[in-house]
């Protein structure tokens, strides 16, 4: 048993050390992450604003990541793992998208990969991503070292295609529906408790002092239910986009090299 536990720790340890090469989620959350330093400050700001606005309007989150090195990962693998680790897109809708760009250097090829979350695979099939976005828009510009131009036109095409798929309003309605589903259950429980405790103990506990632990328990229980899965991570400056929503990626998308 002891050996087993040690083995478990070792296993978990190796898994986390393997994952360590995937960059951590940026704090505060950003949609444009130029780790390779390919874009100018103004360009980053423009792109960030456009993407944040798009995220607020549609709840679809597009993340741009540039890295100097893929650390031995395949581009598609790297992009998928970033999307999954950061939770790009909304939970349940999985409408996130990661654009990963590694620039061409003297001894290695340039790589780009557009990874689609589960929820965008339908509107952005791999073949469309490959042909319309990567081959037609991005790579020709990347070949001329126009990284900003390639990313911007690619993003515009993506926005045009995905705009109708999700809307922020739809998302909000869904969230409020999902949130209220748990309440009736607690109301019933509450009534049950009150009638149980209330009847036998009415005289002594009427002023309510001793019912505090019960309330605390209720608060803890309902709180635990509501907070599952969302990180309530709202960035304050510049409008923001509400933080990453916990979307999931299944390896969809396409990429290319030059």
């Amino acid at each position, binding site marked *: 048993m002891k050996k087993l536990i040690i083995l478990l720790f070792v296993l978990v340890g190796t*898994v986390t050390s393997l994952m360590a090469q995937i960059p951590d989620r940026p704090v505060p959350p950003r949609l444009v992450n130029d780790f390779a330093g390919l874009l100018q400050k103004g360009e980053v700001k423009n792109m960030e604003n456009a993407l944040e606005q798009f995220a607020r309007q549609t709840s679809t989150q597009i993340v741009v990541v540039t890295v100097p090195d893929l650390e031995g990962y395949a581009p*598609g693998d790297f992009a*998928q793992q970033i999307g999954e680790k950061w939770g790009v897109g909304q939970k349940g809708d999985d409408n996130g998208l990661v654009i990963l760009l590694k620039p061409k250097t003297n001894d290695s090829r340039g790589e780009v990969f557009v990874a689609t979350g589960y929820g965008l695979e339908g509107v952005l099939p791999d073949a469309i991503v*490959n*042909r319309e976005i990567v081959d037609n828009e991005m790579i020709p510009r990347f070949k001329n070292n126009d990284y900003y131009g390639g990313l911007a036109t690619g993003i515009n095409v993506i926005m045009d295609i995905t705009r109708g798929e999700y809307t922020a309003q739809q998302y909000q309605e869904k969230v409020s529906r999902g949130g209220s589903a748990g309440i009736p259950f607690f109301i019933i429980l509450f009534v049950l408790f009150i009638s149980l405790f209330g009847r036998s103990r009415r005289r002594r506990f009427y002023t309510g002092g001793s019912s505090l632990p019960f309330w605390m328990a209720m608060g803890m229980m309902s709180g635990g239910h509501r907070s599952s899965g969302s990180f309530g991570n709202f960035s304050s400056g510049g409008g923001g986009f509400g933080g990453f929503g916990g979307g999931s990626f*299944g*390896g969809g*998308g396409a990429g290319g090299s030059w």
Partner: protein
Amino acid sequence: MKRLGIVLIAVVSAFLFSSCGYNKMVELDEQVTSSWAQVENVYQRRADLIPNLVNTVKGYASHEQETLEGVIEARSKATSVNIDLEKLTPETLQQFNQAQDGLSSALSRLMVVVERYPDLKANQNFLDLQAQLEGTENRIAVERRKFNQTTQTYNAYIRKFPRVIYAGWFGFDKKSYFEAQQGAEKAPEVQF
């Protein structure tokens, strides 16, 4: 006496709410089931792409009958191996793996062959199919990894104290993982 009654109610409800991890075990078990369904789903997706791919290639490379037949044969072998998650043992998983690996290698042989046909490689339909196939291979890798992760979470949960004592009573047994493909630790050689 009344006080004792309250304590009893509290203890019983504590058990009801905590359920000794039983509900959690059910939840994790369901997660493994659904991630296995996803694994089968993406393999099915690959199998569905193949007839279209073979037909497209046939139009340009009819001399490669042998390679094409190899792909079709491997496909029918792969689709014939279906596993019920209930019967997911290391042996059946290996069987499943072998059949799917057979299809993977037949497909990679086909992809090598098509390099010789520039017309085919310029065909938009073929390029689309190729992108879809690559995407499917990515999805297979991802879903296998997710299956392993959910299985690991499940196994770790049921084998920890105190669940290790009673998990077996309810039929929660250790589940098997996907192992790395034979030779997968070697990166494929690329020649220019």
